[in-house]
C-alpha cells in the first residue's frame, strides 16, 4: 500500500514538474507537449491506442518468450560446457555489440511485409543476451560441493540440474529478465517505427511525426512507459513466486 502511494506520488510530482516547465518557458506544443495536452490526444485516438497497444504488447511478449527459450538454452550450453562457453562468448558479445537499430532495416528487408515476424524477431534479438549471460554465469559458478552432495548419492546430471543448478540460477535469471523486458519494448518499437505501413504503437508514433502531431507522439511514449511498467511488474510477481526465497528483509 505504502509502495503504491509513494509510486503514485513520484509520478504526480514528475507530471507537475513537466507541466510547470512547459508553462514557465511558454513552449508551444509543437516544441514540447505538456501533460495537459496528452489526454485529448489519447481520447481522440483511443481506439487506435487500444488496438495498437495490444499489438505492441503481444509482439513484445512473444519476442521475450522466444528470448527466454533461446537465451536459457544458450546459457545452459555455456554454463555446463566450458568448450561451449569459450567458443560462444566472443560471438555473442560481438552480436550484442551491433546496435540493433542497424539490424532493423536488414531484418525488415529480409522478411519484407511480414511485419509481425520482423517485430518479434527484433524484440527477441535485443533481449536474449542478458538472459543467456546470466543463466550461463549462474550455472558455471555452482559451487562443486553442491554438486557433490547429490553426486555422492548417485544422482544423475539431469537430477542435479533440476534439483540444484536450475533453482539456484533463478535469482540471476529474473535479474536478467527485468533488463530484458524493457529491452524487448525498445526492439519492438524500433521495428514498428521503421517498418513501412507498420502497426503497433511505434507506427502510431511515426504517423504522429508525419502529421506533426506532437501531443500524439508524447502520448505514445507515455503509453509505452505504462506497458513497460506493467510487464515489469508481471516479472516481479513471477519472481516473487518462483525465486522469492532469495529475497531478504531490508529495513
Amino acid at each position, binding site marked *: 500500500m505504502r509502495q503504491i502511494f509513494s509510486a503514485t506520488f513520484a509520478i504526480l510530482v514528475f507530471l507537475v514538474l513537466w507541466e510547470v516547465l512547459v508553462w514557465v518557458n511558454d513552449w508551444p506544443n509543437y516544441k514540447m507537449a505538456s501533460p495537459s495536452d496528452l489526454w485529448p490526444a489519447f481520447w481522440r485516438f483511443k481506439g487506435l491506442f487500444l488496438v495498437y497497444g495490444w499489438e505492441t504488447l503481444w509482439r513484445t511478449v512473444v519476442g521475450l518468450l522466444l528470448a527466454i527459450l533461446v537465451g536459457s538454452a544458450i546459457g545452459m550450453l555455456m554454463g555446463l560446457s566450458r568448450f561451449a562457453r569459450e567458443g560462444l562468448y566472443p560471438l555473442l558479445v560481438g552480436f550484442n555489440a551491433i546496435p540493433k537499430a542497424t539490424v532493423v532495416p536488414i531484418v525488415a528487408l529480409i522478411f519484407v511485409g511480414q511485419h509481425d515476424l520482423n517485430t518479434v524477431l527484433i524484440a527477441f534479438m535485443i533481449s536474449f543476451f542478458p538472459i543467456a549471460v546470466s543463466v550461463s554465469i549462474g550455472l558455471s559458478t555452482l559451487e562443486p560441493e553442491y554438486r557433490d552432495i547429490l553426486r555422492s548419492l*548417485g544422482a544423475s546430471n539431469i537430477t542435479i540440474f533440476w534439483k540444484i543448478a536450475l533453482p539456484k540460477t533463478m535469482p540471476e535469471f529474473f535479474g536478467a529478465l527485468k533488463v530484458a523486458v524493457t529491452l524487448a519494448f525498445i526492439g519492438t518499437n524500433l521495428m514498428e517505427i521503421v517498418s513501412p505501413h507498420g502497426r503497433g504503437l511505434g507506427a502510431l508514433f511515426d504517423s504522429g511525426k508525419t502529421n506533426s502531431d506532437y501531443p500524439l507522439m508524447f502520448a505514445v511514449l507515455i503509453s509505452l512507459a505504462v506497458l513497460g511498467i506493467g510487464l515489469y511488474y508481471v516479472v516481479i510477481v513471477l519472481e516473487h513466486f518462483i525465486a522469492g526465497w532469495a529475497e531478504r528483509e531490508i529495513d
Partner: protein
Amino acid sequence: MKSQEEHGLIRINNVSHTFNTSSGKIRVLDKLTITVPKNSFCAIVGPSGCGKSTVTRLVAGLLQADEGSVWLQDQKVTSPRPVVGMAFQNPVLLEWRSILKNVMLPLEIVPNDLNMSEREARARNLLELVGLSGFEEKRPSELSGGMRQRASLCRALVHQPEVLILDEPFAALDAFTREDLWQTMHRLRSEEPFTGLLITHDLREAIFLADEIFVLSGRPATLQHTEVLSKRGQKNLDDLYSPEASQTLNTLREQIKIARQHEGPLT
C-alpha cells in the same frame, strides 16, 4: 570370509593418486592403506594439504584412484553409491528449501520405499535428535552456523547410510558450538548405526570422537601412524582432560610434527 568388523567396512588398499594442475603434477597419495572396521568411528589427521579430502572423495566414489583400490562393504568403489552420507565444512543447504525439505533431499534421490509422510517423519526425528525441532520450516539463512551444520548432519544421515563421511564439518564453528556439535555426534552415533570417517585438523576433536586415529604424512600422504584409543564409543568432555587423553594428544602432536618435516617435493 572374515566379517566386516575385522575385515573392514572401508578398505583403502595401497592407493596412490596424482593431480594434474596448471603448475605441474602433484602426487597427493602414496601407497596409502587404511582399514575402517564396521560401526567404528575413525579420524584422519595430517598436515594441511596432505590429501585428506582426496581420501573422502575416493571413498565416496567421486574420484577414482590412479593406483590401488578402495573397497566398501567388500565391493570395489567405482562410482558413487547411496550407502554413503557426506557433510562438509560448508553445510551447503539449499536456500530455496525449508530445513525439513533440505534434510529430506537424499530420500528424493536414493531409492527407498518410504512414502511422503514416512520420509517427513524420518527427517523430523533426526532434527529432533540434533535439537532442531521447531526449526523445520525455517530457511537455512535464518539459522546460525552451528544449527545449519546440525541440519547438514541430518541430511547426511537421513537415508540411513552405512558410512558417514565428515570432511572438517566443525572447522568453521566457534569453540563452544563445536563442543556442542561433538556431543551431538555421539548422540547420533548411539541412535543411528553408521561407520564414521572424519577428516579433521583438530586433534582434540579426533580424540573425542574417534575410536581410531590415522595420522597421514605430508604430501604425498601415506599412513604414518595409527593411534587406537583405549576409550571407544561414548565419551564426555571431561575425558578430554584426563591424563590418558593428554598422553594421546602429545603422541599425535609429535606425529604431526614428524609428518610436516616429511613434506615431499612436487613431482
